[in-house]
């Protein structure tokens, strides 16, 4: 039995369905991210776990107990908000102590736990400050400590880093991961930033339009996106339309050129499929192994991105980009030069067609 279970959860608002048919099992100690664009239902799902929203149907279980209709103050779930939501009238220490104060814990225990928490977030000397005297990053760490101080069954984080500067975002991200590992607390993290989700999570739930698109480890999500949506949302995939020349041998026709997929697929010959190619899997004019795919095109432009150089190549209608690692002796292809790109067969991903429109 999983520690957090969401079964057939659905949430309808007056005018729209925010979440539909949501099924997820989160194991004890696992770090799961809900990833998707704004309005995809990820925050609504999180708020249903916290108890701020009641599902229209379905059940939510925490540690085996049905909490679907339990009010938020009885759930023992810690939440960190995007806007920190620290109580402005209380010091840092009072904020962290809040959950224990309302639970009428003994004074000594509270003091001890607050000190422990302040050390955990590396702000041991700031207990007497007020929130308005802290930076955004410090406020969010205090909010984290406040949520953890009640020793919650589950920690929920709702875009906790999106109000912060890029630099602090990365360092605080690592800190959150370290703290989560140390405490071994089951964590659900909502974000629209795929890099954040990749670097933090054990598993990622990609969501769009209230539905789960794909659930998997960051590795699976990144390397084997199932749908066009996931492919476009995670990373910088090249998406192409191809016609099936021979389903059994995985033969595809891309704008007049032939490539092979690694495996046969269940499509009819002559049908159109969406495929994806990863920029980092493509080489410039490879060794010519027979198992490799080749595509010819004209160079549009090259962009220097630091450690990698991205080249954009026009086939007939579509444009493919691929990445080359930077090195000082690199000779870059020039614009309008004709080149041949090569990539292994398993770099060709066959995607499910989306019912919903794909956001670029």
């Amino acid at each position, binding site marked *: 039995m999983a520690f957090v279970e969401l079964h057939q959860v659905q949430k309808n608002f007056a005018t729209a369905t925010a979440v539909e048919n949501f099924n997820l099992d989160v194991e004890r100690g696992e770090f799961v991210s809900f990833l998707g664009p704004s309005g995809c239902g990820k925050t609504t799902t999180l708020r249903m776990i916290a108890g701020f929203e009641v599902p229209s149907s379905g059940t939510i279980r925490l540690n085996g107990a049905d909490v679907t209709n339990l*009010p938020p103050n009885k759930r023992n779930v*810690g939440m960190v908000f995007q806007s920190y939501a620290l*109580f*402005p009238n209380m010091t840092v220490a009072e904020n962290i102590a809040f959950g224990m104060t309302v639970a009428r814990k003994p004074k000594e225990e509270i003091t001890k736990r607050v000190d422990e928490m302040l050390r955990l977030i590396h702000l041991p000397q700031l207990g007497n400050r007020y929130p308005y005297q802290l930076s955004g990053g410090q406020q969010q760490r205090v909010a984290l400590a406040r949520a953890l101080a009640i020793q919650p069954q589950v920690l929920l984080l709702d875009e906790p880093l999106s109000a912060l500067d890029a630099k602090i975002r990365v360092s605080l991200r690592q800190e959150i991961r370290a703290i989560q590992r140390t405490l071994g607390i089951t964590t659900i993290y909502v974000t629209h930033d795929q890099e954040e989700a990749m670097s933090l999570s054990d598993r990622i739930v990609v969501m769009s339009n209230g539905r789960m698109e794909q659930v998997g480890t960051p590795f699976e999500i990144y390397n084997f996106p199932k749908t066009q949506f996931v492919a476009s949302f995670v990373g910088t995939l090249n998406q192409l339309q191809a016609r099936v020349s021979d389903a059994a041998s995985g033969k595809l026709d891309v704008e007049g050129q032939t490539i092979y997929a690694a495996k046969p697929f269940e499509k009819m010959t002559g049908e159109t499929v969406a495929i994806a190619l990863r920029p980092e899997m493509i080489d410039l004019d490879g060794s010519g192994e027979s198992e490799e795919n080749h595509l010819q095109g004209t160079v549009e432009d090259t962009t220097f991105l630091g450690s990698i150089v991205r080249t954009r190549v026009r086939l007939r209608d579509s444009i493919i980009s691929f990445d080359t690692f930077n090195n000082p002796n690199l000779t870059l292809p020039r614009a309008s030069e004709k080149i041949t790109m090569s990539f292994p067969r398993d770099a060709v991903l066959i995607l499910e067609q989306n019912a919903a429109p794909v956001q670029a």
Partner: protein
Amino acid sequence: MAQTAVVTKSGAAFTLPRVRTIFITWLGVIPFFAFAFLFLLLPSSSLFIESFQDTQGNFTLANIVGLFDEPIRSGYIASIEISAFTALVGGIFGFLLAYAVTLGGLPKWVRSSYVTFSGVASNFAGVPLAFAFVAVLGRTGAITALFKNVGINLYDIGFNLYDFWGLSLVYLFFQFPLMLLIMIPSLEGLKPEWREAAANLGATQFEYWRRVAFPILLPSLLGTMILLFGNAFGAYATAFALTGGRLNLVTIQIGAQIRGDVLHNPNLGFAMALGMVFIMFVCIIGYTLLQRQTERWLR
């Protein structure tokens, strides 16, 4: 020729010779300061100076000491009592009204009609306000008559529109709305996340109000009540139109003094006015300090 830029930061706007620049820069504010001097500072400073002089123009503290003698003393006490009472009642019920229209879960039109009405009522003071209450609760007023029809004479059972409680009832007509108008932004400044965070940490609705919402609102609640106090304390027209000068308030006493030196000591009259300004000044300082606290929190 020495050139200097008048406008800094994003480049020179007008470049003028230095001396003329300074002169012209200050020239622009002279009308305002002249006006403020003639019609604000000169009259009030003359009250101030006269308060510390005897009739021969010698310095004295006798007038200030005289404020603590009858009948001035009881005038101040009556004014402070009515101001404190209406500030307290107006503050509490005005706050409840503000709460009801913002967080009470009522339809939107309730809020908008209350806000518009409060704008009217907080400015609807003085003679017409007094007349409105006389028309309904005076000796021959509509409600008084209504009660008479069912056999109750309000004035026999202790009600009197023209005494302390009656005037308080009238003052509340502009106290509630002022409280409402100032508290609505404060109540709307309570972030929903605070409520959620409190619930999330195990607090009940009551505990959220006791430990979070109320403490956050307290400075602006107190500050606004101080403002209400000052609002009632300086009111003259309503009290005069209602009681015709029978009630012994400071403002009424000053009015009588202006009409014809009832204290037989003009300088004592000025001191009485100065005492009012002093109390109002303390009120405004208190209000500003408390408001600043709230702004720091809600930033």
